[in-house]
């Protein structure tokens, strides 16, 4: 297992480099333009000059290598400097966003808190709701609990968040006036009352996303439990006199978790990707909004850096999922 982990980690480096190259080529090929959002009153010559100043005149391999240098060498050095107060070398060009003309990494750091709070919390909440619902639905298949759970999760999955978000805002902000419709990213939690303000502004986006996440995960959980409940080893366990609780919650659950772990692990990078539509509806302005604005504005450095960080997370969490398989199911051997 250990050598497997090491080998996979080493293999991840060329994989990620290749992915970054493909993303770069894709972005270069895409027809969006950094000057598209400027008013039409700005003449074409000025637009061309703006593009030149962004470095778009250079050939593509130069631009890619420049990004690699900035991202893999300059940025880590910069982080080291910030952390330890060292001075390494002189001026280094960081990865700069075209829209804001500021370092991309700073933008990401600025956006991270609200994304982790809202999207991360909703993900954890979603898992916490989904697993018990999936287990009970499967154990009592076709009971009322199962039917209602199925209905709610199907509605939760099939009704898009652009609709549920607006619906919640209309009910709870406009009619009842309980929660704010616009998320305040500058809000600081310092005491109990400001904490309550934070809770209030998080309730709606978190519940919209949690419903969506829970409905998806609970379906996989239920299906996987159903598969395992009919296996021979369950009969054996019951036959040897184990309590029902132990049979279901230890034997069946552990085996059923394997496919669900994949779903959960695959979802974690998406947490960092933010939830584009929900963030937009509630004005959370996290990483999802950063990405979508960058894509719409043709801001290649931001898109490239963000997608590459997602790629790193995806590779990482897939590795974690694979290791977890081995832990949950000792029969799986990679070596």
């Amino acid at each position: 297992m250990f050598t497997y982990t090491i080998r996979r980690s080493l293999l991840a480096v060329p994989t990620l480099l290749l992915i970054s190259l493909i993303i770069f080529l894709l972005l270069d090929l895409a027809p969006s333009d950094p000057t598209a959002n400027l008013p039409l009153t700005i003449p074409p010559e000025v637009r061309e000059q703006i593009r030149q100043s962004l470095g778009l005149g250079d050939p593509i391999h130069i631009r890619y290598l420049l990004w690699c240098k900035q991202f893999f060498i300059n940025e880590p050095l910069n982080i080291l400097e910030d952390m330890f107060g060292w001075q390494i070398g002189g001026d280094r060009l960081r990865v700069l966003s075209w829209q804001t003309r500021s370092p991309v990494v700073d933008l990401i750091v600025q956006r991270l808190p609200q994304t982790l709070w809202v999207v991360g919390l909703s993900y954890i909440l979603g898992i916490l709701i989904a697993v018990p619902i999936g287990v009970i639905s499967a154990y009592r298949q076709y009971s009322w609990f199962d039917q209602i759970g199925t209905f709610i999760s199907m509605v939760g999955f099939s009704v898009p968040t652009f609709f549920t978000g607006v619906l919640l805002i209309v009910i709870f902000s406009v009619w009842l006036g309980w929660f704010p419709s616009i998320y305040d990213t500058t809000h600081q939690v310092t005491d109990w009352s400001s904490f309550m303000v934070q809770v209030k502004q998080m309730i709606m986006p978190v519940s919209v996303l949690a419903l969506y996440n829970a409905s998806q995960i609970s379906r996989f959980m239920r299906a996987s439990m159903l598969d395992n409940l009919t296996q021979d080893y369950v009969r054996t366990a019951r036959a040897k006199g184990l309590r029902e609780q132990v049979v279901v919650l230890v034997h069946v659950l552990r085996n059923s978790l394997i496919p669900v772990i994949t779903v959960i692990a695959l979802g974690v990078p998406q947490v960092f990707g933010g939830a584009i539509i929900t963030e937009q509806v509630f004005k959370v302005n996290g990483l999802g909004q950063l990405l979508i604005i960058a894509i719409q504005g043709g801001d290649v450095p931001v898109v490239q850096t963000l997608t590459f960080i997602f790629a790193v997370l995806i590779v990482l969490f897939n590795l974690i999922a694979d290791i977890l398989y081995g832990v949950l199911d000792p029969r799986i051997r990679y070596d």
Partner: protein
Amino acid sequence: MTESALPAAHDPPPPRSQWLDVWDQFKTHRGALWGMGFFVTVLIAVLLGPYLWTIDAQFIDIRARNQGPSFAHPFGTDQLGRDTLARVLAGGRVSLAVGIAAMLLALGLGTLIGLVAGYFKRLDGPLMRLTDLFLALPLLPLLLVVIMLFRDSLRSAFGPETGIFFLIVFIIGITSWMQTARIVRGDVLTLKEREFVLASQSIGTPARRMITRHVLPNVLSPIMVSATLGIANAIITESALSFLGLGFPSDFPTWGRLLFDSTDYLQQYPERVLWPGLAISLTVLSVNYIGDGLRDALDPRIRGR
């Protein structure tokens, strides 16, 4: 096992096809029957409906805009006076076609890659790295590139609507198979170590038969869930595409688009969101029940119990 268990000396009962058994089991699943009934009704409605309800979904009757339900317009009209019933029916054709086709494509790809990666150790690495790549690709720029490269040639080959249909199905399919592949692979990895697989391997069953006879039937349930979620996902993704101007022409109704357009009018005309919203949810729900029933029916351990 069941076939060989029957002693030959007995008078053999008339041979029953396996699919008849499946159907018998399927019939005992009430939810699945309801789901099937509803789904077929929706299919018939969207296929034949436009011939019975002859108002053109794109016809604008500007004097009759923003109307509530009436005899002339049972579902009311939209902000340009187009008949909502006609639009829901016409939209259903597209949404269902896109949903089912894209789901099948994604499922097929995902299952194939998952099975191969899980079963053949040597292919596991490359295929899973390919999955990682697809998971990491930013969807929107990818769409822009695909549309830019292929729209015009498809449009001239198949006409604007069919061309876009192929494009959309292809895009949704190609960008949503990864989860299925990962899950199937995970299941196959565990299955491979199970006794019955080891047993078949030891008697020299070829890989293709192993996969189709022993492995595939045992990974059906996550595939069924993926299928259900996949249809909903495809319908919603299609609406997001048309919202971005990458989907069908704007006057071409689809369920997702109808829902999106009427969200702005949520407070003024709440009934307008209801129809496309209900259509999507109930269709997905019925597909889910069909999936449940099919899974039970295809599982030999449950069948005949």
